């Protein structure tokens, strides 16, 4: 499978670029933050994203989606990264859809997938409990009760958890704390009795909720996949999320790099453009290479997901690790090369650094994925 875009994918990239640049640019992100918007994104924009087919990018056509696939989803995420657009794209369109497509029963799929494509129902993945990403670390319990289960526990970092209609909850039906076996996924209505949702605004002005479950009753029919076998589904959901976050981070990297190179050509000191200083030229040239490498890993990860490559997990980890490191470097260098103005809140470049930090941390950084990759490769 070639690492180049098809004509259809190029069209999607163009329309996504145009869409986010005009409909959800960095200024919208700033406004949402400054007004401490309760939703954290613009619902009208999300409705338009549904019309464009973005919300249903991974939803099969049979369920009313666009079914464009992961490369397309990544290109949309890249445009989101370039514009720092806030939208429940990751939580709902990527994670929610992948969970349903991978683990959902025919009934669950028929019920939820069309709603995702229409932009009418929001999902959030309530999996991580530890502050450092550790997907098998699940202490939340699901104990048999009635014709279903009772959930008890706390999830600390649920992206878009404050607005989600449905939570995808990882809970333990058997096994100990860190075991991969015995984890079960549940589809839980966010308004169920016993759920307490505490919104946390994050450093990147996105939202993640701390959600606690206190004897929350769920029906047996709300189990996603088989009881005790949720980890396999969770890994697939996370891998799709990692590859798409890699794409978003690539967008963050390439945009902050482009802005930095522009600045190097404008700003003058010592009677010359600062871009004529070789110390900065070499760092910029190095960064150019790094961004190109990151792009290759991202494309490979997305292509692997589309072709159900049996190395999808390896490529997802590779992309998440590499794109995360590059986003860190690109945004750090961006702030440094802007000098004092780069540190000011009025200037946008700092937003990119904040988003890079959060995206890098989400679903595992290079320490996590380096270890995962090494294990997958047998060392």
């Amino acid at each position, binding site marked *: 499978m070639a690492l180049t875009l098809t004509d259809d994918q190029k069209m999607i990239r163009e329309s996504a670029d145009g869409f986010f640049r005009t409909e959800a640019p960095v200024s919208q992100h700033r406004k949402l933050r400054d007004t401490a918007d309760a939703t954290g994104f613009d619902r009208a924009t999300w409705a338009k994203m549904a019309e464009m087919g973005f919300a249903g990018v991974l939803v099969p056509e049979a369920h009313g989606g666009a079914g464009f696939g992961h490369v397309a989803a990544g290109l949309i995420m890249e445009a989101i990264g370039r514009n720092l657009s806030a939208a429940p794209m990751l939580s709902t369109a990527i994670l929610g859809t992948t969970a349903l497509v991978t683990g959902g029963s025919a009934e669950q799929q028929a019920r939820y997938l069309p709603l995702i494509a229409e932009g009418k129902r929001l999902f959030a993945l309530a999996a991580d409990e530890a502050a450092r990403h550790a997907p098998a670390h699940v202490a939340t319990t699901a104990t048999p009760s009635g014709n279903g289960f009772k959930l008890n526990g706390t999830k600390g970092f649920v992206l878009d958890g404050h607005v989600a209609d449905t939570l995808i909850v990882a809970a333990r039906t058997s096994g100990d704390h860190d075991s991969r076996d015995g984890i079960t996924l549940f589809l839980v209505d966010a308004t169920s009795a016993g759920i307490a949702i505490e919104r946390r605004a994050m450093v990147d002005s996105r939202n993640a909720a701390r959600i606690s479950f206190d004897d929350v009753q769920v029906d047996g029919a709300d189990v996603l996949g088989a009881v005790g076998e949720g980890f396999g589904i969770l890994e697939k959901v996370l891998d799709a999320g990692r590859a798409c976050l890699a794409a978003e981070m690539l967008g963050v990297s390439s945009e902050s790099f482009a802005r930095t190179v522009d600045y190097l050509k404008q700003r003058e000191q010592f009677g010359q453009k600062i871009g004529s200083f*070789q110390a900065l030229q070499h760092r910029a040239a190095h960064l150019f290479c790094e961004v190109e490498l990151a792009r290759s*890993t991202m494309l490979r990860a997305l292509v692997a997901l589309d072709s159900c490559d049996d190395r999808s997990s390896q490529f997802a980890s*590779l992309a998440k690790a590499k794109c995360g490191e590059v986003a860190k470097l690109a945004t750090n260098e961006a702030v440094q090369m802007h000098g004092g103005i780069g540190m000011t809140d009025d200037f946008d470049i700092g937003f990119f650094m904040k988003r890079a930090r959060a995206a890098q941390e989400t679903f595992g950084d290079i320490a996590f994925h380096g270890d995962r*990759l090494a294990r997958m490769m047998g060392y």
Partner: protein
Amino acid sequence: MDLLDTFRAETRAWLEANCPAEMRQPIARDADVCWGGRNVKFTGEAQRLWLERMGARGWTVPEWPREYGGGGLSKDEAKVLASEMRRIKARSPLASFGIWMLGPALLKYGNEEQKREHLPRIARGEIRWCQGYSEPGAGSDLASLRTSAEDMGDHYLVNGQKVWTSYADKADWIFCLVRTDSTAAKHLGISFLLFDMASPGVSTSPIKLISGASPFCQTFFDNVKVPKQNLMGAPGKGWDIAKYLLTHEREMIGDMDAGGQRDSVSQIARRTLGMDAAVLADTGLRTDIVRHEINAWAFALTMERVKDEAKAGQGVGALSSMLKYYGTELNKDRQQLLMSVAGSDGLAWEGPAEGEGDLARGWLRSRANSIEGGTSEINLNIIAKRVLSLPGA
């Protein structure tokens, strides 16, 4: 797709029948690499046969046109051939500056006679070439070169000195940058000459490297007569050719793992250091290794993407500088890691054991990767100027 499948099947069958078993072994030492040439010394009959068979098919240069000794393959077919060779771990039949550097320049800038004279001999490994670019006073600032070629009517008279000329003492011919016009601006007085190293007045003197080997030389020209028809391109237009050739050289040097046959650092580390349950026994090195492999993998994917894009007629400018810079820095990192993995055993220089000292020599040799063919700094300069359009670069 169908045609390509047929081609794959035929290629596989032909390789099975024609690639000697000895040529499917990993390259263990320098002598295993075949450079061809008038004075070629094969390690054995298998190496000779392999070169002869591949050369006759043009598969030493799969994409060159058939009339010049190439295989006439499309990019897709060449990719299939490469993957089939990788499958049986077939060695490359021929290492050659003629293939990597001069050939592409000849195809673009050579006249018909020159192409017919030189390309088939390169393809069959009959003539070994060396590169006469650098001089004592002209390294990174190559265009300041001073070796002169004086127009004597029917021939040029070449005088001057080159340095760091790899394998000059073993090469049959040289492609050489000379100054034909000392009054013109620096870049405009340069011409591109091809001549026989056996010509009267050419002499070489080997220089020893820190690795102990002497693969490069000082090369002296003392009133060397070069026929006029050996000029490639127009007089004074040599700089364009020189730069074009360098882009190919850089891609070649950057693509250190061209055959994809090297063991990864982690594979070697697993054998050397062993495992502790599911992880490498040395957890500190494990972290260094996986970070290296993330970059190595990302780089390999980038090489793949660049080739795919070239095939699709797209392409990123000044890519050869990126590949050269990143690929060589990665290879140096790899060699250093391999030294760490080997620990004190890696320090061995000479001894009775087979291959003693190879690792340390390989490490020392790798330090040249970011110097030869344009230094890392020069390649970063090129990216800053050509790709990023930064001022004054």
